[in-house]
């Protein structure tokens, strides 16, 4: 499951049927960065 972060209360949330923070009701969520490293080509 992809984790999202609420833009207002900074809580980690999971997206269900509604795009809305279950803690504060805010509708702007950011996709949280994964813990691992990311390898990519400089192109």
């Amino acid at each position, binding site marked *: 499951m992809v984790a999202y972060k609420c833009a207002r209360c900074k809580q980690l949330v999971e997206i269900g049927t509604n795009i809305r923070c279950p803690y504060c009701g805010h509708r702007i969520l950011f996709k949280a*960065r994964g813990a691992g*490293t*990311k*390898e*990519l*080509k*400089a*192109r």
Partner: protein
Amino acid sequence: MDLVFSRLDDSVARFTIHGATPAFANALRRSMIGEVPTLAIEDIRIYDNTSVLFDEMLAHRLGLIPIKTDLSQYVPRSECSCGGEGCPHCTVMFTLSVEGPKMVTSGDLISMDENIVPVHNNIPIVKLWENQKVVLEAVAEVNYGKEHAKWQPTLACGYSEYPVITIKDTCDGCGKCVAECPRDVLELTKDTVSIRVVNGESKEKDCSLCRLCETACMDSGIGQDPAINISSDSTKFIFVVESDGSLPVKEIIERALLHIKSRSSDLIEALQEGL
């Protein structure tokens, strides 16, 4: 074939080739752009990036930073004895670990080899605000411009045919062509139009072949045939080569010519084997 340099320093060369063909001039141009290897960042491992730029944009910007290259120490990865796995003979590791608020520049990249550093230290990469940080490792490798433009050692690299300006006896010295010339190539002295000479050097080669002088001459009412004629010599070429700083221009030209020579030798060998 003759090569006459009018300017040669580490970053820019301007020279004329006499007795060449357009095919050879283009081969040299393409060889300088695509067949001279340089170092550029290729593989990036991002540990943390909380900046406003996506990882991909950050990686792309890092790849375009010109890096000083020493081709006596480093070889292209595809030709290295490591078989392309990456070793100290074909790759250089850089690290970048910066916290905001700060403008991250190429000077913040820390190289594992003190001789291999970015050409300029003030190339902006990303601007960090408070509590933002970037932590990454970047591996630069030697490769060719034909693979990707980031490995091109040249910036401006091109040629033009040598201009030939002919002023006929029918010229009435009205001076309209002199006034029209945007490059100040012509001059009018005692009702005679001639090619300007500055410090003992003719300005003929500065002509851009725009033919505005021909048009001005025709507009002066001289008739159907203009008194000044602009053409070009297809056996003489004016080259302008600018380096991005990764290699000196002289080395770029030398290596490009050696590449043409080695490709020609390969072709002769293949031909002899085939017969």
